[in-house]
């Protein structure tokens, strides 16, 4: 790749664009001068959030064991990726009443959609940050997929973001490794890892595995405890770790596209100075 030319002036402040999107989905794109992409992002994030809110009756924070209902617990939930959505839940429902009551049957699906809306908005923030800058002249822009959307595809199915970037070997490696690790964890925990209500923090980690985790939860539900599970803690750790490691894979997808657009060689950009110089 040709040496990068001088960095052009940004369209807008990238940090402001990202923060605006955190508060209102799409606002960062509008600020950066790409309102159509912002409007699409707004519809997608708010649509997912609205569907999740309706299906869960807005009671996803009530759907936690009592000891987890602390003031900061939900900041670690995926829905915190959208501050606007997070504030909406806090103002309209919060942790709910202190007495127990029956949850709607669709609360699992609703919780997943809300989590997906948070992750999508976080990817939209990355996209807004990218949109606020200008690619350098002559930089490789193929394939022309928005880095935020490629990252979200990597969330939906581990490896998909890499695949869309043409990195097929890495896509297979990431997808196979992480989905296999998650399934091994689910087997070891005998499916108890799939309960947001019982294992909120572990669940919040594993939901970053996207559709494989969500579909497994929808298929298996929350199996009843019939006795002690020998490897429950190991299984919880494996499943949660699989999701968190997918965040690393998502960052890899974003960084690749960002390096390309900014005129850097994605391979050389990540090497420490001096390493690989002789090649």
């Amino acid at each position: 790749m040709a040496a990068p030319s001088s960095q052009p002036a940004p369209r807008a402040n990238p940090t402001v664009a990202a923060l605006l999107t955190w508060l209102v989905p799409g606002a960062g794109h509008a600020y950066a001068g790409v309102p159509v992409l912002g409007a699409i992002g707004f519809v997608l994030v708010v649509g997912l959030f609205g569907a999740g809110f309706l299906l869960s009756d807005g009671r996803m924070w009530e759907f936690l064991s009592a000891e987890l209902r602390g003031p900061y617990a939900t900041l670690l939930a995926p829905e915190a990726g959208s501050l606007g959505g997070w504030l909406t839940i806090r103002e309209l429902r919060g942790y709910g009443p202190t007495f127990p009551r029956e949850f709607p049957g669709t609360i699992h699906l609703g919780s997943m959609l809300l989590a997906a809306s948070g992750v999508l908005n976080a990817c939209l923030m990355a996209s807004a940050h990218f949109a606020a800058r200008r690619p350098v002249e002559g930089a490789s822009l193929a394939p022309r997929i928005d880095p935020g959307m490629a990252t979200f595809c990597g969330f939906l199915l581990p490896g998909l973001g890499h695949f869309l970037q043409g990195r097929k070997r890495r896509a297979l490696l990431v997808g196979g490794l992480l989905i296999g690790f998650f399934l091994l964890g689910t087997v070891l925990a005998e499916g108890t890892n799939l309960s947001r209500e019982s294992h909120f923090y572990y669940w919040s980690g594993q939901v970053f595995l996207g559709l494989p985790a969500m579909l497994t939860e929808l298929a298996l539900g929350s199996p009843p405890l019939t006795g002690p599970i020998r490897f429950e803690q190991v299984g919880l750790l494996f499943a949660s770790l699989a999701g968190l490691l997918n965040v690393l894979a998502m960052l890899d997808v974003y960084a690749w596209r960002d390096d390309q657009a900014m005129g850097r060689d994605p391979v050389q950009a990540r090497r420490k100075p001096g390493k690989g110089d002789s090649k």
Partner: protein
Amino acid sequence: MILHMILFAIASLVIVVMSALYSEADDSAALASVPRRFVRFYGACVVLAAIVWLMGL
């Protein structure tokens, strides 16, 4: 004990492969660095576990 070490080795391998892929964008170079990274990571964890065990924690 051996079973736990095997399970930890599985988790370590996944962590190490993903960290190698993140820090090295070239697939061949990333995979080539996995054995060295795995030995370093697993070895350091064993040393840490041994220290904790010796301290009686």
